[in-house]
């Protein structure tokens, strides 16, 4: 008898659980979506959980800061005040989830713009953003493949990563020597960087050892891969992935006695790396210029606001700063186009809007033109060389064409 009542209790609790789920479900369903009056949703799909979460969060902070500032300044489209609202969804770095999210943001929230910060996701979203649904992709990736796709509704924010390879190679060769070891991460982006550096290095007359790329996310101990790379006695090492593991690799290489120079992929930021390892380990490296080293009109204020929002300890990166700029450009383009719901017109108005953007939003190498294919170009792109004294010296970069 006892067992019967027990199983009945179990059934009841099961029903209760299912009921609770159904309730939450309806509650959530009712909550989202409806916007008031002139609210325009800016969509964002990025990795907010899983291995890429830190990256996705950095992008999100930039979007939030931009939207807060723009709303405070007031955005006016076609004579009506407009409030911008950010709606973020998590895609865990999976392209197909990102595309579903983007579709949802466009359908349910009527977002005219969706921000996505990784090349795979952007390629998947490009399958659906012009045709049955129309929305502009604010693309944060330096992979030129996304503009080569000739998608009419894509705005690529960062510089083409291929621009760096030549200057990086020359600088590293100058400070190190002719022999390069490859120790980048095994991600979509890392693989492309490795290839680009390989080409530039051989072109500059250097020698290249074997490809020792490892997946930074799954390696438990970097000592092995580093020993392997060092066994070829390189003068320079190409490294790069997320900042913190990259810093660990460089530290390990220095520990094992490496004296040469590093070429640091743009995903890793030297100032962010300095939070997990001593600056000494990072010296003699060529990489992208830290946000705090920019001298744009809005940089200083931006750094202050960032510290307020994210805390003093957190280092502002270009993910945050460039997306901050990006949303400001889009808002201005909406004003110039006089519409918030026609992505084609917004895209067309970008080049007209660029000179109009307020100085406070110019923080990290502001672009002065947008190419036919939708790439924002910053006229004076600079990288940096972290010298023996721990000082960042600027290295001007000549930009390559996005065409294949």
């Amino acid at each position, binding site marked *: 008898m006892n067992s019967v009542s027990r199983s009945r209790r179990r059934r009841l609790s099961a029903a209760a659980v299912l009921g609770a789920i159904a309730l939450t479900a309806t509650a959530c369903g009712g909550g989202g979506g409806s916007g008031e009056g002139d609210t325009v949703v800016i969509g964002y799909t990025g990795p907010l*959980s899983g291995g890429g979460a830190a990256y996705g969060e950095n992008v999100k902070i930039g979007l939030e800061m931009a939207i807060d500032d723009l709303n405070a300044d007031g955005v006016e489209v076609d004579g009506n005040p407009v409030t911008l609202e950010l709606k973020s969804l998590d895609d865990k770095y999976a392209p197909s989830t990102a595309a579903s999210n983007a579709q949802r943001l466009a359908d349910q929230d009527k977002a005219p713009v969706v921000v996505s910060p990784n090349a795979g996701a952007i390629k998947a979203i490009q399958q659906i953003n012009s045709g049955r649904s129309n929305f502009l992709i604010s693309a944060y990736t330096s992979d030129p493949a996304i503009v080569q796709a000739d998608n009419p509704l894509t705005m690529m924010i960062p510089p083409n990563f291929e621009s760096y390879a030549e200057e990086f190679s020359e600088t590293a060769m100058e400070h190190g020597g002719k022999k390069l070891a490859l120790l980048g991460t095994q991600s979509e982006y890392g693989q492309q960087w490795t290839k680009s550096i390989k080409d530039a290095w051989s072109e500059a007359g250097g020698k290249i050892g074997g490809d020792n790329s490892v997946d930074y996310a799954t390696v*438990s*101990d970097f*000592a092995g891969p580093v020993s*392997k790379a060092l066994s070829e006695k390189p003068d320079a090492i190409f490294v790069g992935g997320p900042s913190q*593991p990259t810093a660990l690799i460089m530290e390990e290489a220095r*520990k094992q006695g490496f004296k040469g120079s590093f070429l640091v992929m743009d995903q890793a930021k030297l100032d962010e790396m300095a939070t*997990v390892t001593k600056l000494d380990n990072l010296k003699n490296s060529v990489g992208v210029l830290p946000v705090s080293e920019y001298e744009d009109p809005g940089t200083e204020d931006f750094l202050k606001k960032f510290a307020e929002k994210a805390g003093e300890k957190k280092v502002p990166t270009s993910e945050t700063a460039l997306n901050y700029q990006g949303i400001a450009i889009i808002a201005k383009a909406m004003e110039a186009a006089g519409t918030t719901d026609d992505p084609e017109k917004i895209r067309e108005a970008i080049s007209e809007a660029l000179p109009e953007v307020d100085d406070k939003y110019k923080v990290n190498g502001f672009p002065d033109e947008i190419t036919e294919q939708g790439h924002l170009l910053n006229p004076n792109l600079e990288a940096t060389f972290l010298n023996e004294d721990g000082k960042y010296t600027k290295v001007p970069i000549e930009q390559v064409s996005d065409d294949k």
Partner: protein
Amino acid sequence: MTLFIQQLFNGLALGGVYCLAAIGLTLVFGVLRIPNLAHGALYMLGAYITYFFLTTVGVPYIAAIGIAAIMLFIVGVGLERLVFHPLRNSPHTHHMIAAVGAMFFFQALAQAIWGADFRRMDTPITGELRILGAEISAQRIVIIVTAVIVLALLALFIKRSIHGQTIEAIEQDRVGASLVGINPSMVSMLTLGLSALLATIAAGLVAPINLLSPTMGDALNLKVFAIIILGGLGSLPGAIVGGFALAIAETMTATYISSAVGEAVAFIVLVAVLAIKPNGLFTKAVQR
């Protein structure tokens, strides 16, 4: 030759990492036959709690690991009570998915508390040793030594202590063990708690050579399952041999063949071994 010796030591250190991470799982999967996919998440949680006590509260390194280990013991017991106990008569599939649910929960929780950013844990054990021209850090030597000691102690615990023997008794015959007065629930709680505790010790020692992040356990999860299956379920010597063998194979193939093969080699070895010996290297009598 220097490279070979260097990589041998690197492989040994990696083997220590794998063994330490595998120990807790060997108990739970090897002995109780619960495939606890949340083991990596427990490892991660252990690392964060150690980090919390070390950095935020400011207690000494060893004490931080100790406090975290005790807290994780409680978490392990809680996990057994709330998740695995209600499923004790279900097939593995249920355990696996429930464990995946628990893993999602722990990862999201860690991200909510500590954020998604990578963090670095400092260790007071510094310095390097130079052996035959190869360089190896003191922390890695501690890892290797601890792995072997902890595994040996665990074997002793299971063979010699009353509590340990109850675990083995339950493993061999659940019904028979309950007839002689062993409480299977108590043993399951003890085992899960112990495994979480061991995962924390592992995490406290290994975290300083890598980074903390909510997904830090994922990288280990699959490999650790491969290791204990390779050694033979429930076999502690198997876990040691499996851990070191796979780690050295991984380091050596990455060095002399390619890093891509190095990444896959653990699984290729597993597939090859099981194709020849379907019950692993050190099989105990098959028990159903």
